[in-house]
């Protein structure tokens, strides 16, 4: 985790963007520090892309201020664009040019001399695993390849900050895993600050240091995933899944009696397992607690003479957090 004393790279202050009556971004304040991977999460139309465009100076904010690397994006977009690499969602390339040509073009737009541009392009293609496809036309590329080429395209100007808009959209799970690993690797090795937006929560939570939850133009929560889950009212901080056999009612009440345990639920065994194992089949219990009770539970199960088959701490995923928020917002709407 990064300390809050780190150097801020992206600073948003009371940022507002309105389109007519519609407020796309509503007084957003956010600080992103050097070297961190920040995930901007939210459903479609939450204002993520608009925020990113304002960071790059491609759209003017209605009010408020954006500073990237200490430079005001609205006033000096050129300087910001020299330091920031941006990959739009659904990144497009010149289809009838080769991957190498596309990269060299971007490099030359950044005033990199042709020879060096080619060297960098080849190196980056190697890095993102497209070295074999360097001389193929981009029109023949698959979605995942495009996305990786997009990453190379972003990196060719040697940016300080990279902004990726929905980088995982439309790629298969293995592709997502590779891409995210690549992003994390790059961020750690090059000390890059990464801002990525997504509506795929579980994918992003794997690599983000911090996330901001963005709904209807407002940042409703911000922090690492632990703080985020505790920020949400009523969510238990810890959850544990436990497979054991045989499970007696006594054991369940013992576990419930532990300090900090909020609830113990018995997960219905699926029919297949029940048919095979009979009574000896392990039963899964879900324990929610306000503090970490993993060790105590293990001790209790062992003491009761039951066999312990599995003990899985279950961290709250962003999906849960997200879902919980929407449950809340729906009730608010109904009330309102």
């Amino acid at each position, binding site marked *: 985790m990064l300390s809050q004393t780190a150097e801020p790279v992206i600073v948003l202050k009371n940022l507002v963007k309105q389109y007519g009556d519609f407020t796309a971004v509503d007084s957003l304040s956010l600080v992103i520090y050097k070297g961190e991977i920040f995930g901007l999460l939210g459903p479609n139309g939450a204002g993520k892309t608009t925020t990113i465009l304002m960071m*790059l100076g*491609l759209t003017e904010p209605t009010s408020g201020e954006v500073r990237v690397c200490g430079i005001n994006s609205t006033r000096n977009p050129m*300087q910001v664009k020299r330091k920031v690499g941006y990959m*739009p969602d*659904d990144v*497009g390339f010149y289809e009838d040019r080769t991957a190498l040509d596309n990269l060299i073009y971007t490099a030359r*737009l950044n005033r990199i001399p042709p020879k060096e541009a080619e060297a960098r392009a080849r190196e980056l293609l190697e890095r993102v695993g497209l070295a074999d496809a360097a001389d193929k036309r981009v029109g023949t590329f698959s979605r995942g390849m495009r996305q990786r080429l997009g990453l190379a395209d972003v990196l060719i100007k040697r940016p300080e900050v990279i902004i990726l808009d929905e980088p995982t959209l439309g790629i298969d799970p293995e592709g997502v895993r590779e891409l995210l690993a690549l992003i994390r690797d790059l961020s750690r090795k090059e000390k890059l600050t990464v801002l990525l937006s997504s509506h795929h929560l579980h994918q992003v939570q794997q690599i983000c240091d911090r996330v901001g939850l963005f709904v209807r133009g407002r940042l409703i929560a911000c922090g690492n995933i632990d703080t985020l889950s505790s920020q949400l009212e009523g969510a238990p901080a810890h959850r544990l899944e436990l497979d054991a056999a045989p499970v007696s009612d006594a054991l369940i009440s013992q576990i419930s009696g532990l300090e900090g345990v909020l609830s113990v639920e018995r997960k219905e065994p699926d029919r297949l397992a029940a048919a095979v194992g009979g009574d000896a089949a392990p039963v899964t219990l879900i324990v929610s607690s306000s503090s970490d009770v993993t060790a105590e539970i293990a001790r209790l199960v062992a003491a009761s003479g039951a066999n312990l088959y599995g003990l899985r701490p279950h961290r709250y995923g962003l999906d849960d957090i997200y879902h919980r928020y929407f449950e809340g917002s729906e009730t608010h709407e109904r009330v309102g």
Partner: protein
Amino acid sequence: MSAWAEKLRELLRGVFRRQAGGAEGSGEAYKPGETGHAAESRSSAASERVLSPFWVMVQKEFGDHVRSWRFIILLAIITLACIGSIYAAVTALREGVSLLGGDADTEYLFLSMFTVSNGTLPNFLTFLSFLAPLIGVALGFDAVNSERNKGTLSRVLSQPVYRDDFLNAKFVAGLLLIAVVIFSLGFLVMGMGLLTIGYPPTPEEFFRILLVLFITTVYVGLWLNLSIFFSVRFRQAATSALAGIAVWIFFLVFYDMIVNLIGTALAPVNAVSIQQVQSYANLIMFLTRISPAELFQEAASTLLFPDVRTLNPFVTQDQAYLAISAPLSFGQSTLLVWPHIVALIAETALVFAASYVLFMRQEIRSRH
């Protein structure tokens, strides 16, 4: 404003750097001891001499155009038209058509390469005025919207590139290409004419043709600009192509009709004074000359027919009677069409300004 200032500064810096590099290079010969150093700094200067993003974009656009099927097809059509018109002109000249028109002098025989025909095919000038808008529209109709739809617009604009440079590069690349095509076609026709009729042009004729080619380039540039404007305005390439073609057909076919309609409606029934008739004629002339096609036609034909002494349809009997029937010199012809050239350039600038304003106000989003 600040963007312009910064650009200017960069430009100046580039010029100075080049000069400094040159000075170092020339000093090298006199100081053998420092040769190594000078050579080193020169090579570093060479590697530092990087094209500005604007010219990189122009280069790329130009390359894209040249390689595209669209351009090859256009070029094929134009070349065919060119060969056809030369053939028609040459046969007409052989049959002596041009000699029937005026006095049997060969003073402007070379110019008639561009203007006569044996009747089977239109002459070169007609072909050009017909096809020029098509070239312009074809090169520009998907300039901006295709980039937007492919998602490359937001990627390019997130590079350190001025937004207006993007539009300028599109225009400059198109215009360069058009200039190359038109001038090479013009020279081709001249060369072929030289070979077939064996009669060399006078310098005056040569300059007249050059000026016509220049006007044609401006004219095509106008259409290019118009189609770029439509490509900014319409998200679909097909819509913008259709809009461009519609405007073309409008000026080609309907505009004259509409002007005629207005003319008959406004015609003074019982003209009392000469002023009344004159102002009416002036109005009609003004209306006709709004059309770029008309401007181009008038300018080009005035230059190619040195006999044309005035473009005013309203000549008094005295003027007609007293005028000496002699061709104008190149300078005088140019003077006659100068307003046309200015008007064409002004219309081009107007359309460019419109697309500029529209583009600067647009949101840069990917594909939406």
